[in-house]
């Protein structure tokens, strides 16, 4: 572990890659089937989020706004715009859930979401997500926690085979799917909350984006509390697991900071073996472990001479950096959007909470960039190879299909990074 600088002392962000809490909440609601995320704020917040995710996922995105305007912004506690929004939404479509989340504007006004929600006779989860606090990751976690708190029915029954997976926001749709499959292969019935694996996974459906399509069903959320086990992945999701345990004191919780690389996946497999009482994992797991080992060796010579800049949300960053480090890459600089306990675990020479100006100022310290689409200009200007990861990636199609976690994803990710570094070394 290197030096962790929790915050640069700058009065501004220059070329930020941080994203807001409301946007994280939006995404969490999009992982619920037939949901309508409803952002409470000025229409711009929603419009930005909609365009942003539409381009990233190459899919129409369901989302609505309470369209707070000058008049309501000053005079009203939010009641009118929210109530009217729900009325207008349900006049056109029949969501299984409305996911109400606030913004800086309405939080500054002090709108009482809870109070308004209590007056609405429609399945609705509300969550306070001011954009002047936290970021994408915490917004996702807060919305998930709100869904658990407001939807899940308490019980004391336990279904031993049932397992609830709480994935952090950095896990792609395919990663959630692979994680579900990995766990299910040990004999568990897995439900993920939120579940992007069947929602924003890039599938063609008869989608007019009137509502989210795919994801966990609201009914399934309501019945989550009889799970014997809850697994949180990413430090941001700890609170969600605790919230679920409050619904049923008999649920046992296991936390994984990440499920990446050899050691990260070993930890998961080891625990699953113990919990399932099995001697051996399924053959595919054994085989992919050997492939990851081989990929580590095949890529180590290249990665061992490669210094990496990695930027991203804390939980995702922790996983990517661990995978790279295990194969011998030197993560010389890791830059996170926000502070997090995850940062202390990152095996990088320098970890900071910052922006792409910081990345650019440290340009001499790395040879390869792993980060989002905003890094494209940086990589181009500094003449360095880029492996595109995280939000947003408007440069490429197929974002939900990128897979970096578990044995399998680690093997592909390491090969991709080594190949990117070598290609560049070849042509300079």
């Amino acid at each position, binding site marked *: 572990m290197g030096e962790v600088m929790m915050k640069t002392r*700058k*009065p*501004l*962000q*220059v*070329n*930020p*890659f*941080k*994203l*807001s809490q*409301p*946007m994280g909440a939006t995404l969490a609601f999009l992982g619920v089937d037939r949901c309508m995320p*409803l952002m409470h*704020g*000025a*229409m*711009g*917040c*929603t*419009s*930005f*989020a*909609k*365009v*942003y995710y*539409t*381009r990233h996922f190459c*899919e*129409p995105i369901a989302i*609505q*706004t309470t*369209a*707070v*305007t*000058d008049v309501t*912004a000053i005079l009203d506690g939010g009641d*009118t*715009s*929210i109530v*009217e*929004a729900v*009325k207008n939404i349900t006049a056109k479509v029949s969501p299984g859930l409305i996911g109400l989340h606030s*913004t*800086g*504007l309405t939080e*500054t*006004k002090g709108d009482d979401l809870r109070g308004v929600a209590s007056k609405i006779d429609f399945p609705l989860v509300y969550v306070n997500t*001011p*954009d*002047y*606090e936290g970021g994408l990751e915490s917004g996702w976690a807060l919305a998930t926690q709100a869904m658990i708190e407001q939807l899940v029915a308490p019980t004391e029954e336990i279904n031993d085979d049932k397992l609830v997976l709480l994935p952090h926001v950095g896990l792609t749709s395919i990663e959630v799917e692979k994680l579900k499959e990995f766990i299910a292969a040990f004999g568990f019935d897995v439900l993920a909350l939120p579940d992007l694996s069947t929602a924003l996974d890039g599938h*063609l459906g008869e*989608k*007019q*984006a009137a509502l989210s399509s795919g994801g966990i069903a609201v009914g399934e959320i309501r019945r989550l509390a009889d799970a014997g086990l809850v697994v949180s992945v990413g430090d941001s999701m700890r609170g969600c697991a605790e919230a679920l345990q409050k619904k049923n004191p008999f649920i046992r919780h296991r936390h994984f900071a990440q499920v990446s690389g050899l050691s990260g996946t070993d930890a998961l497999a080891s625990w699953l073996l113990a919990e399932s009482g099995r001697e051996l994992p399924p053959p595919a797991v054994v085989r992919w472990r050997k492939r990851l080992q081989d990929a580590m060796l095949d890529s180590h010579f290249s990665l061992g001479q490669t210094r990496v800049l990695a930027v991203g949300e804390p939980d995702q960053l922790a996983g990517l950096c661990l995978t790279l480090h295990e194969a011998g890459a030197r993560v010389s600089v890791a830059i996170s959007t926000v502070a997090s306990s995850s940062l202390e675990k990152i095996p990088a020479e320098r970890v900071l909470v910052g922006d792409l*100006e910081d990345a650019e100022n440290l340009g001499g310290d790395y040879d390869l960039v792993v980060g989002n689409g*905003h890094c494209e*200009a940086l990589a181009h200007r500094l003449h360095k190879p880029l492996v595109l990861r995280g939000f947003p990636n*408007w440069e490429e199609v197929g974002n939900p299909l990128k897979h970096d976690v578990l044995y399998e994803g680690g093997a592909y990710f390491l090969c991709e990074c080594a190949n990117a570094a070598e290609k560049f070394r070849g042509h300079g």
Partner: protein
Amino acid sequence: MAGKPKIKELLNESACAHSPTKKAACNAPTPGATTGGCAFEGAQISLFPYADAAHLVHGPITCLGASWETRATKTSHPGRDFTQMGFTTDITNNDVVFGGEGKLRDAIAHILTHYAPSAIFVYATCVTALIGDDIDAICKEAAEQYGLPVVPVHAPGFVGGKNLGSRLGGEAVLRHLIGTAEPEFTTDFDINLIGEYNVTGDLWQYSHLLEELGIRVLSTLSGDGRIAAIRTAHRARLNVLVCAKSLISLTRKMQERYDIPFVSLSFYGKRDTSAGLLAIAEALGDSDLIERTQKLIVREEAKLEERLAPYREVFRGKKAVLNTGGNKAWSIAAALQDLGIEVVATAVGKSTEADREKAREYLGPDAVLMTKPGQEQARIIDETGAQLLLAGGRSLYTAIKKGIAFADVNQEKKKSYGGYAGLLNLAEDLRNALENPVFRNVARRAPWEK
């Protein structure tokens, strides 16, 4: 100089193109049934293209974090392109409680120290407007201290939509920049291009023609624009308003204040481009210029026709349904017609009266003006045998079900469709769409489907 613009006044702007009957809807978006950006986004759109100015967004991360690097506005500015950079004070809880003015002051200092821009625009946002940060005072103080324009832009999201924001952006330019410097020299044919943002280089599709005609672009708001240039904009002989009604208030005020007439036109499609060039020449009122312009148009149209010839074969007999909003409902239609494609329907659900009239004029009496395109377009494709649907991504499934070609008119463009040359890009893209077998192939039924 300072002081916030009067929003109400701007909303009631006499030159507003919205028909009087639609004004209420235009001002107040419907909760739960609204799409479209806010005033802040509108201000961004109109001002960010100044690549030599830093654009500092005073607000929480949403406003800038999700919006920078989203527009392909090009610049020839040789220095670092600030349009493609993001600056924000990233207001936190602490700032909300104790005020963000100190942070803003420091942020301005940081930018000046590290990036030396020609000016700084400081954008108020919902939260910082609400907590009452006095950005006017801070901008004024910084401008005096550092000796360069520091322009406050009062377009927090909650005041309204994009159009209003663009107007507010124009207002800020008018108050703080226009008329604050003199050009080295002037010519009889100096014009300002207002509302041309040079997205994908649209401006460059016709700027060389203006140059050839001896027309000088004195300044722009704001495509490929420079701060030094816009400060001299009051010396132009003509304001040319390009496809941007939101800035008509600016041109009107400049007419009142500086006696600069304006013309409103578009460079989209062959006919509009020709008409636009001629309109400028005529507005400048020089008969020799008009004659030269007419000759140039003849030449350029002939050149275009020659290069379009291979496409005409492909487009012959092709019919298109167009489902998009605003002035695109007729401007794209016009361009399609220029290519020889028949436009059998266009969407006018949210259009103004003027746009509807224009659409009817371009499309002729037999075409359908769809008010509920989502419901109508499939039927019209069946009835007309249209081979091409131009719409937003949501309508893709309609095209697939009908097995016809689709073009996403809302997709971020990567190349310019403007001017004469841009029409060739459009032709290329539409030919690619029409010849692309993917729509047919994707429509294949799965073996397990009945």
